[in-house]
């Protein structure tokens, strides 16, 4: 069975390996250059804030092309895995009918699926994580300057969350293939659900993984008619979630300020501190791995219970010239096919 799984997956695996290798070379060459720039720029030893800012700017704006390239690639990799490795695994077998060949050999279909999942799933997770680690390494000088690893859009492309994304996308594709039973719609479904789940968890769940911290900062009062602005507290690497004025006074225009004289304006900031980067990474990975395990459970229980029912029902349906209700069928198909039989007879007798 291992050979069979390997034989049916090897072309895709070789293509993926080639792509990862190519990307790796590009990342290595440009990444070494970026590091060299970082090390020799003197940003580690800069004294004044203005100096440091200027040096940092030079690093952050270095090689924008690569930066713009690596971001989407890492977002796309798990989705592509779900679509091209997950969805066809069961979807194509069901669509082309080859499951009837695969599941009537002397191997139980549970084992058949388990070995396929083991091979393709491991490759999925490995491929996504290798790309993620490469991008993390490449971006580390820029991350040092920006101090924004927790920010949505950056957080997703660093560290180990890619493992969770890939596992989820792969099992999502698998399940979609099993449920939809056709490759292309399953691929589309995988993409839609995967993107929706990612957005939902990044927007609605991630900010609340740990209770946010709060910090108050003063308000710099604006000119008359212009709202005052909060002065962000110095929280290097923190992810600012929200800010709001404290007490009854709004960050007001001129007149509003005067309605509460003497009150010191403060803005309350809620944030997640930089030290929570790795706890958040492992939490989010765990969430997606949990989702993946649930989907795996769905797939195996589907496989054991009613797996091919719908597919075979469709075959049976397709055979019927006139799908009707029960009694109609008895009446109609009998006679219709009788005629068909009679007309086919000469061919059969040759």
């Amino acid at each position, binding site marked *: 069975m291992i050979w*069979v799984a390997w034989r049916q997956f090897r072309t895709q695996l070789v293509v993926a390996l080639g792509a990862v290798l190519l990307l790796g070379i590009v990342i290595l060459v440009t990444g070494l250059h970026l590091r060299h720039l970082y090390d020799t720029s003197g940003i580690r030893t800069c004294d004044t804030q203005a100096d440091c800012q200027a040096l940092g700017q030079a690093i952050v704006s270095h090689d924008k092309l690569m930066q713009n390239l690596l971001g989407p690639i890492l977002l796309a990799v798990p989705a592509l895995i779900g679509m091209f490795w997950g969805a066809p695994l069961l979807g194509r077998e069901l669509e082309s009918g080859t499951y009837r060949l695969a599941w009537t050999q*002397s191997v139980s279909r549970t084992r058949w699926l388990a070995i396929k999942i083991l091979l393709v799933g491991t490759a999925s997770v490995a491929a996504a994580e290798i790309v993620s680690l490469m991008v993390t390494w490449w971006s580390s000088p820029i991350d040092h300057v920006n101090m924004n690893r927790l920010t949505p859009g950056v957080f997703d492309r660093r560290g180990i969350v890619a493992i969770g994304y890939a596992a989820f996308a792969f099992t999502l594709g698998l399940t979609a293939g099993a449920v939809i039973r056709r490759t292309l719609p399953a691929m589309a479904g995988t993409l839609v659900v995967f993107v929706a789940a990612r957005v939902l968890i990044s927007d609605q769940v991630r900010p609340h993984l740990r209770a946010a911290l709060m910090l108050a900062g003063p308000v710099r009062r604006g000119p008359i008619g212009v709202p005052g602005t909060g002065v962000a507290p110095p929280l290097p690497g923190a992810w600012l979630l929200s800010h709001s004025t404290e007490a009854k006074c709004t960050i007001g225009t001129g007149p509003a300020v005067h309605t509460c004289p003497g009150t010191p304006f403060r803005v309350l900031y809620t944030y997640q501190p930089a030290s929570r980067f790795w706890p958040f990474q492992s939490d989010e990975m765990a969430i997606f791995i949990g989702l993946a395990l649930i989907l795996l459970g769905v797939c195996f229980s589907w496989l054991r219970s009613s797996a091919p029912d719908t597919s*075979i029902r469709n075959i049976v349906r397709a*055979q019927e010239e006139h799908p009707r209700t029960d009694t109609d069928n008895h009446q109609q*198909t009998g006679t219709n096919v009788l005629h068909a*039989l009679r007309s086919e007879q000469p061919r059969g007798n*040759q």
Partner: protein
Amino acid sequence: MSSVLQARGLGKRYGRRWALSDCTLSIPAGCVAGLVGPNGAGKTTLLHLAAGLLKATVGTIEVLGESVRGRPEQLARVGFVAQETPIYPTLSVADHLRFGAKLNPSWDDALAQDRIAGLGLERRQRAGQLSGGQRAQLALTLAVAKRPELLLLDEPVASLDPLARREFLRGLMEIAADREVSVVLSSHLVGDLERVCDYLIVLAASRVQLAGRVDDLLATHRRLIGPRRDASALPDGQQVIEASHTDRQSTLLVRTEEPIRDPGWIVEQVSVEDLVLAYMDQAAGAGRERGRLEAVRR
């Protein structure tokens, strides 16, 4: 005699529709059994139930003496050739043989290689480029080389041209003769079944209408032609399957164990095709009758 396939009260429902209901039959070992019936009669469903690809809604089905559960040991004893003979289009012929070898402990590689060589298939050719007949032969080779005790074939020749069909059936006959394997094969082409089968099952309106050895069936059915008379006037033991009347003449197809003694009848032998059509027509009539009853009940 032991039976290779035994169903008791077997039924399969897809959603609200019964594709097969109340199916009770027993196919003896060592036969080439033909399963015939109109499209949608439940042939595909019955074979998929036997192959373990479907689970029964009601009733039991036993294959080679054990109930079908999809265990590897049982899968090894049954070969299945599905309708349209699915194969992996991107794998080569040789890959398919290796696929069979890896997935079946009882694989007979010499047999598989011989068959492929005998068929003149190019081993390196992609299976997707094979003709329909070659494809069916490849699928049959896969099913046979695992050395099954029972070979199930679902409409294996339906999509083949007459020449490929004859080749395929000839190959099947050789296998059945050499390997002592029991065969159950479905088709809606009676002519094909007539040539290869020694056991016949007529499935229509999702029920078994007729089952038995072809010789026995032919021996117990007669066509009677004579002056017009009512079918109910026949003696006991003569069961009318099909009756047609013109103004002056009646033609009856009857089932009887006894010889026909009434000199008023011209007695004719029936062919397998006559039998199948008569029973299918009867099933269609019964369906009409049932429909009428249900309409009355409403």
